[in-house]
């Protein structure tokens, strides 16, 4: 005789794993992504999935993917870092400035990343050391870094540092797809493995989910959050360097509003801005790709890009609603 109290009823024919995929944190974004691809395929035609077009989408989602993969660690640990867009702008400005002063790219990149880590450290001191609200502290850093970038860029508001070798490097393709896009995808997968399969990942999610419980379990909440904020700054710094290499320059507009683009996509992908412990780097990456796909469809159909913002806003609302339908806080 079956013990009906031992386990919840299961739908016949649907394995636990597949149910997890269909109802889990990345389920809605996976379906959204597939719908975007399908719309692109039917509306734009085969061109949408040509290697050339995927290469274009990939090229311009490299920076958000890198920044998102690292910023996701901060979100998972329960701290939102609003300074990532400005950090990208600062990083590109400093990197371009050093290149224009004759530095070699490797040294310029190392110094730039170090500077970004310093600013990430200031975020960490404010938030972890002094208990400042992450939104308030990183908002301050957002404004300060934007100002520093503008100072570095000087009265012209831009620094030209076009380096053909560097441009060719970031434009290199492997199997028809941009090398750096593939690297960014690989980075996302590594981040997903760290988050889902390692003790470090479990600690990060535990800290974000309930920091008091995590502390009782012997996890150093402070160490985890400091590391997450440093990673977030490092990712943004890396993104800025890639931006400068792609564009051959840095300008006031570089990275402007990127924090909203990245966090909107991460939320669409299953992360939560205010609730740590929720989300998966793969969901975040799919969110970014879905938004980039929508933007590309509008480009290829010659529709005003302003519609992208409307669609992203609606997707965000839908993601929030789905999160609530799934159970919100109780879900995780």
């Amino acid at each position, binding site marked *: 005789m079956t013990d009906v109290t031992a386990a919840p009823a299961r739908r016949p024919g649907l394995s636990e794993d597949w149910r*997890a995929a269909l109802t889990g944190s990345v389920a809605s974004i996976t379906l959204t*992504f597939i719908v975007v691809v399908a719309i692109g395929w039917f509306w734009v035609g*085969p*061109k949408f*999935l040509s290697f050339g077009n995927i290469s274009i989408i990939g090229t311009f989602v490299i*920076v958000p993917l890198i920044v998102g993969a690292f910023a996701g660690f901060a979100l998972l640990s329960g701290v939102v870092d609003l300074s990532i867009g400005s950090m990208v702008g600062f990083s590109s400005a400093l990197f371009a400035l050093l290149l224009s002063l004759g530095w070699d790219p490797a040294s310029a990149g190392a110094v730039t990343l170090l500077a970004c880590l310093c600013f990430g450290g200031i975020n960490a001191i404010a938030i972890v050391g002094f208990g400042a609200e992450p939104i308030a502290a990183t908002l301050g850093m957002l404004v300060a870094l934007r100002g520093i970038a503008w100072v570095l860029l000087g009265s012209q508001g831009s620094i030209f540092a076009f380096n053909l070798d560097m441009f060719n490097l970031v434009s290199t393709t492997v199997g028809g797809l941009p090398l750096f896009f593939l690297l960014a995808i690989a980075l996302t997968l590594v981040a997903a493995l760290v988050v*889902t399969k390692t003790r470090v990942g479990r600690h990060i999610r535990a800290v974000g989910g309930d920091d008091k419980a995590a502390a009782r379990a012997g996890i150093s909440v402070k160490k985890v959050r400091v590391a997450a904020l440093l990673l977030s700054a490092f990712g943004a710094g890396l993104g800025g360097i890639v931006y400068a290499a*792609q564009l051959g320059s840095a*300008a006031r507009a570089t990275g402007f509003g990127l924090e909203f683009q990245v966090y909107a996509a991460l939320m669409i992908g299953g992360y939560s801005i205010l609730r740590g412990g929720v989300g998966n780097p793969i969901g975040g990456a799919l969110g970014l790709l879905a938004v980039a796909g929508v933007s590309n469809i509008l480009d290829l159909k010659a529709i005003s890009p302003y519609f992208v913002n409307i669609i992203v806003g609606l997707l965000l609302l839908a993601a929030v609603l789905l999160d609530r339908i799934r159970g919100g806080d109780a879900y995780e």
Partner: protein
Amino acid sequence: MLRNTTTRTLAMMALSVPAILGLAGVAEAQDKFKLGMAVGGNTCCEWMKSQGDVARALAEKEGWDYVELSNNNDPATALKNAQIFVQEGVDAVIQFNGQPSSNPAISAVMKQAGVPIVTYDIADPGMYFVGIDNLAAGIAGGEGLGAIVKEKWACNPDLVISAEGAAAGIVNEWRTGGMRTGLKNVCPDIPAEKWVSFESQGDAAVGLPAARDLLAAHPDAKKIAVVGLNDGGVLALINAAEQLGRADEVIGWGQDGAFITGDNVNPHLAGSVFYFLEGYAVYAIKDVIKPIAEGKEVPLKADAGDPASKVQPCPVTAEQAKAVPDMAERVKQLLAAPAGTTEYELFCPNKG
């Protein structure tokens, strides 16, 4: 659950996207000439959209295919658009890139693909330059303002403010500096300490705080003359003066003519220099694109000082500008005119 979710997500994608990927075709064959147009995409200015409308209409008149994208006033988007144009198989591109920091990369992409590109008003060594004679436009505007300053204030203003737009580089020096030169041509004895500048970024809204700060630093200045990179920059100062209740004694003269026609012309904008920005495609197509479409060799003229096509400036007072139709009407009349007719020929009240 998360471990399985990761695996299943990858499985779902593996079943859907890449399966279709292999079926994707390559760009369709084309025989018609195809023109790409990247509009500026800054919401500040209606003329950016109109530049695309005019280019589209003229391309259609020529029987060409036409693809239009918006740079969204973003350097990364401008570069992305360049790659989309290459993918779309365009034969030539026209762009207005208000964020020219990405121009070197765009040039590299276009050069690699062998696609000629025309740029409006902001020069790049790899692009055909089509634009205004900036220095002449600046001097003409400055002299126009000088005439008013001489008449109203006997060439004795308290302050002459320059609304700079440093990102435009040499164009800013020609236009804003040219206006100062023009003003000095009429009023040569304005003391050096009366000349001050602020960074307007060529945008009325963006430049407003800096304009406010500048006025706050000169509380006693009553008679203020304003020159600048464009109408938007000059309006930043005028709007700031209005906010501070000090607009009565401000006289501005802009460049580009973007805000000198229509029903809501600011009364303190005494004049401007029409470039008829929306109609630049006439010059670009006549002097660069059409010869290329006909298989002719067009030498690359990328220098703003020696452009591929020079747009003539048309200085006007606000009073004279009333006789010039608004932009929508100008576009309508331009498209109805014989091929190659410019808006300068159609509408400038002070034709040389």
